[in-house]
């Protein structure tokens, strides 16, 4: 029996399976993530790390099992409430997913516009997060004119702009040089330190070793240890 009112957990997964046709991407995943937890999901390429994150923000739907996010049962959520669910998350995608035709400022502002925030607030907030990631001077640049590290900083800025409860980061340091990777990691750590829940999918062992936080290890879609 699922307790939808469990206040200590922010995310709960019960016997979750995900299939793509006959291919099993995730098999019987059970997970309980507490508020303000810093969790790593690790495993080799193709283990199901990105799929697991996608299930949380309904980028994909589960084939079997149930997921609760802050008491919202994702199997029962109506189409209209999906945007509300997604606003609980700040998502950092592996390929950044910045809109190439929009400036750095507009890419970040989009999250706040979608939330219906006022123009003045958006202006203030975007400038503030740009300062945090050290990109305030590049506010008018288009994403393709930025380096990989800079694009990742913008992706982090966009993820935190909407003051989400949870950040999902898919390989946030994967393609970055060590200096940029450290900077991004510090930014994410800062979010966690301010009370946010952080879930990072990575196979960067160095990053995991540095923190000593809980690690979920996936192999061929199965959860092999915690």
């Amino acid at each position, binding site marked *: 029996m699922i307790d939808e009112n469990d206040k200590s957990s922010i995310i709960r997964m019960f016997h979750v399976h995900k299939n793509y046709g006959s291919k099993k991407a995730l098999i019987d995943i059970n997970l309980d993530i507490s508020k303000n937890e810093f969790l790593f999901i690790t495993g080799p390429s193709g283990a199901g790390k990105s799929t697991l994150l996608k299930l949380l*923000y309904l*980028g994909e739907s589960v084939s079997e099992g149930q997921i609760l996010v802050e008491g919202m049962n994702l199997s029962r959520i109506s189409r*209209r409430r999906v*945007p*509300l669910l*997604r*606003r609980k998350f700040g*998502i950092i*995608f592996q390929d950044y*997913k*910045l*809109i*190439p*035709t*929009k400036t750095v400022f507009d890419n970040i502002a*989009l*999250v706040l*516009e*979608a*939330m219906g925030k006022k*123009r003045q607030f958006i202006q203030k907030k975007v400038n503030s997060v740009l300062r945090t990631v050290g990109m305030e001077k590049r506010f008018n640049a288009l994403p393709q004119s930025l380096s990989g590290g800079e694009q990742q900083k913008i992706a982090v800025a*966009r993820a935190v702009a*909407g003051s989400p409860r949870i950040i999902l980061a898919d390989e946030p340091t994967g393609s970055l040089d060590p200096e940029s990777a450290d900077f991004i990691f510090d930014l994410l750590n800062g979010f966690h330190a301010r009370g946010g829940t952080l879930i990072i999918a990575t196979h960067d062992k160095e990053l995991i070793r540095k923190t000593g936080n809980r690690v979920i290890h996936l192999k061929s879609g199965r959860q092999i240890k915690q």
Partner: protein
Amino acid sequence: MILFFKRAVRDIRTNRFLNVVTIITISLSILIVSSLALFFVNAGNYMGSWQKGIRIIAYLKPDLPEAEIVDIKNKIQGFQTVASVDFISKQEAMKKISEQMKQQSSLFEDLKENPLPDAFEVYISGSSLSNKQLENLAKQIESIPEIDSVEYGKKWIGRFVKVFELFRLTGYAMSGIFFIASVFIVANTIRLVIYSRSEEIEIMRLVGATDSFIKTPFYIQGLIQGALGGILGLASLFVVFMLISSNIKFGLSSDLLYIKFLSLKMSIIIICCSMLAGWLGCFISLRQFLKR
């Protein structure tokens, strides 16, 4: 709303070529539809004025005494639906016809006697006399023994009305077809725009944008396309109308053919229909795309 409007205008500017093509295509459809409307409005006006001017000509048998002519006139005057009766003597008729055919005056010079009969011009009260009523009145007049024959233009007007009605129905059908064509053209353009921006739309959804947040700028874009297409189509028709009507004024007597442009109300209705086509096109495309 201002934010959505700005985003729509920015999208139009970004996808300039596609939008210009759509606006031109809508304007062509509107040009065709409004040309039909212009034709029907003017043809309708003519029909009305012709019907108002319908009269029956009753030709008298030859050599009737003047007193009898007065009696017959009074008799006709007494019929219901008759407004007035004018007597046209054969001399007056000859004078009129000679004036009208000045260039062929030699034709009349060789005549030994006036072949035209005396006649009455019977004007009808009310403008909406039906074909049947007119026919009955003509029969009543013809039944007077001194009347040789009657003539009235209602028969050909009746035929003209039937042809006109057929044209009108064809016009409605064509307007409907062009409206549907415009809707699908807009739908296809918006679909192209949506596909070219599918990644952007996907990102917007992932960061928590609602469907209405994504759709509204597209709807505004469709309405702008429709409005601009409608205005452009009507403006083109107006230019063509000015050119044609000035030529007609030079070529023909202005009383014979006076055409007028669509009223402001009609123009606004056409532009609104054009905007509706734009909106509907967006609606169809977005519904298909966002269902996925």
